């Protein structure tokens, strides 16, 4: 009677899992008792399954739920579950044990899937400082964060999102530092997401943003555990998404993009200088092509005379208007950039030669484009990557400024700049003003602003956003 009940429950579970081809089951009989096991073959550690579950059961003299949970099974994570939860547990890489005569089931977590080892992420190289980066495996990522806080106040909470993907999102924060209000708001926001699936962390970014239609990024994304740990120490909340090497943090401020992990590992004087350079890079990337066009079309009278002569000599006889010329060079660069991203690396050199030498040099010699135009676009495009995380947004702004500079001139550029700042000042991220600590000015946070203080002098946590404890060190 017991055997048929176990078999029935195995069948029921298989049916719940739509009898997928990778769903496996086993039945171990032991005298009058028997144990049924249901699992997904591709999601479990086979060696552990045999050595930690099957063999101990076969070798044991008596079988009961209590004995299995406490003595027989040799793996770390064993939990009692109801029949209704069993299918979900199997999907998460558990082996579910159905014991004859017992109503409850046992779920043994022996999840295993191919995962790469932590390596230095391609977007955040450091000269000095930790080199490990997140991987696609959520457990590895949690470990990478855990080992930076040997403290009970590191709290992890799981939320599952996606009707089909049922993706695990782990919210990590430091109790006593992160604001409860912000943590709860994020959890509520994640729970309210009703979508088919979360394939990568970028799928949930738009759900978390307060202004999803905005061009500007409003959620922090990073690939290195040391940066995430530092953000959490400031009172931010991290979200680790299964299957993604990008960890998200909130609240997010615009100025975070100007800060880099390197800054804290170098001399604060050098770091302050580099931050100024990054800001200049943003400004050059965004406005220089527009200003160049504005000067050529509207304001020749304010160009210094020697420079004007050079420009006039080099642009004489060009078939395009200044605006079309700049647009042409910018688009040419954009095409080359897109091609180089998608081409295999061995073809990258060929693309560079075609782009830089053939198209650029020949274009100038053929009288299609001017050398100052090429220099300006090259400078602006290189400057985009002083803040690589914002490169896409800055590219769009670059084209907008180019268009405005060509149609309205300097007044349009300044006007748009003023509007842009007013617009950014209207954004907020979970109670934090987006342009803080500069607009509004939060004076204590300026110690880690453009000009930073040595880390031992940063006594307070950022005040620009809510956190439970303001004092960082004494």
């Amino acid at each position, binding site marked *: 009677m017991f055997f048929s009940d176990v078999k029935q429950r195995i069948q029921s579970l298989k049916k719940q899992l739509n009898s997928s081809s990778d769903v496996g089951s086993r039945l171990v009989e032991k005298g009058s008792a028997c144990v049924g096991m249901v699992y997904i073959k591709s999601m479990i550690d086979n060696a552990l399954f045999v050595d930690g579950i099957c063999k101990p059961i076969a070798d044991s003299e008596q079988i009961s739920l209590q004995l299995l949970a406490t003595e027989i099974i040799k793996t770390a994570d064993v939990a009692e579950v109801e029949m209704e939860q069993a299918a979900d547990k199997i999907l998460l890489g558990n082996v579910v044990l159905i014991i004859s005569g017992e109503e409850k089931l046992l779920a043994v977590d022996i999840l295993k899937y191919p995962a790469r080892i932590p390596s230095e992420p391609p977007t955040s190289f450091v000269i000095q400082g930790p080199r490990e980066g997140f991987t696609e495996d959520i457990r590895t990522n949690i470990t990478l964060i855990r080992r930076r806080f040997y403290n009970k106040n590191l709290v992890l909470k799981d939320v599952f999102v996606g009707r089909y993907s049922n993706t695990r999102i782990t919210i990590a924060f430091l109790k006593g530092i992160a604001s409860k209000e912000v943590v709860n708001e994020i959890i509520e926001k994640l729970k309210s997401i009703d979508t088919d699936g979360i394939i990568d962390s970028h799928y949930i970014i738009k759900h978390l943003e307060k202004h999803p239609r905005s061009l500007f990024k409003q959620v922090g994304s990073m690939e290195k555990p040391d940066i995430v740990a530092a953000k959490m120490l400031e009172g931010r909340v991290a979200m680790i998404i299964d299957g993604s090497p990008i960890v998200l943090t909130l609240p997010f401020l615009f100025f975070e993009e100007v800060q880099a992990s390197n800054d804290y590992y170098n001399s604060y004087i050098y770091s302050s200088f580099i931050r100024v350079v990054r800001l200049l890079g943003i400004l050059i990337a965004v406005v220089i092509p527009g200003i160049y066009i504005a000067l050529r079309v*509207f*304001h020749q*009278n*304010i160009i*210094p005379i020697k420079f004007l002569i050079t420009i006039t000599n080099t642009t004489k006889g060009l078939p395009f208007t200044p605006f079309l010329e700049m647009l042409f060079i910018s688009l040419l660069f954009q095409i080359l950039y897109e091609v180089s991203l998608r081409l295999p690396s061995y073809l990258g050199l060929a693309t560079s030669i075609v782009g830089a030498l053939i198209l650029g040099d020949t274009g100038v010699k053929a009288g299609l484009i001017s050398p100052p135009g090429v220099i300006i676009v090259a400078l602006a495009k290189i400057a985009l990557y002083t803040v690589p995380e914002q490169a896409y947004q800055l590219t769009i702004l670059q084209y907008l400024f180019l268009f405005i500079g060509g149609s*309205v*001139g*300097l*007044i*349009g550029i*300044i*006007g*748009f700049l*003023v*509007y842009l*700042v*007013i*617009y950014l*000042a*209207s954004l907020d991220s979970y109670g934090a*003003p987006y*342009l803080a600590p*500069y*607009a*509004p*000015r939060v004076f204590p946070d300026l110690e880690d602003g453009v000009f930073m203080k040595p880390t031992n002098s940063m006594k307070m946590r950022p005040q620009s956003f809510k956190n439970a404890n303001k004092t960082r060190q004494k």
Partner: protein
Amino acid sequence: MKQTLSSRQGAILASLLLFANKILVLPSLLYENSKADGFFILIILLGVELCLLALFFNIKTAHPNLSFYDVIKKYIGIVGAKIFYSLLLIYFFFKIMLLFNISYMYFHVQVYIDVAYYLFLFAFLVVMNSSVLRGIRPIGRGAEFFYFFIIGCMFFIILLSFANFDRFPLFFDSPPAQYFKGLFSNLFCFGDMLVLFVLMDKIEFKKKDETKFFKYIGASVVILILIYFMFYSIFGQTSFIHKNAISDIITFSYRFIDLGRLDIIAIVTVMFLSFLQLSIYCYALCECFMKLFSKLSIVYTIVVFDAVFIAVVASSLVNYLTVINLGMNVMGYFAIVLHLILPILVLCFIKFSHRRQQ
């Protein structure tokens, strides 16, 4: 949710507004009307500005949560409040017109030679409208963001234009009647603190915040005095010819002539200032409009403002010269009522009611 400004942002808005209409054509007009005593008139009118600020503190302290409209309504009645707000509406509209025209003429002379008036109109209206739609808090934060850049540029201009002070004209060479005429005809270019009254309920203000206001506004007053001082020192008796003061003092700085056109610093500074000042004035105008027609939303208000503004500009009734003439004559009466009579009246009522309560 009601948007509010911190006291610092309020102080910065007032501080930036203090430069409105004063750093381009006004120094030359003051000299034209009052000769050397133009500088003295400037100091008196800046004093009036500071008195307005003190009045603002008094009214705000007495009624921390009320808008200026509600304060007037409380003491003078709804009709009085509507009348004063109508006057304020016209006043702000004309301020915008004056600022727009002066800025247009400046940019036209300095950097745009063959560009249509409508290009400027379009550029300014787009920025003003979109800023006002974002609300006063983003405008305040935007002003805060650019504040040190603008003030830094002003100081830089003053430093570069260091002048020969021997040419600074002497005071008191006009008869007293000329003083009053000068005060009357230039009063309209002042009174920028009235914006603070209109934004009264949106500014978070505590008693000790007064110093913050005085600090920021004091800095602007010092800069203005220095600019006028430099201007009169450099140009002396030919001051009336130079209609773009802030640019001219740096353009005629012969010691730095090798560096090229340094007036680009002044041009960029004036551009930033003009956009911010016009946005603030436009917001103040919309506030007045919405108080008068409480059922209208900000979007309708903006549409009405744009329509009227474009109609006035397109009708060619108002141009650079007519705006300046109107400002120096008719608008002087508006300025007397709004800068002097209205705040003093409200203050008297507050004091009277306070005494009666005691």
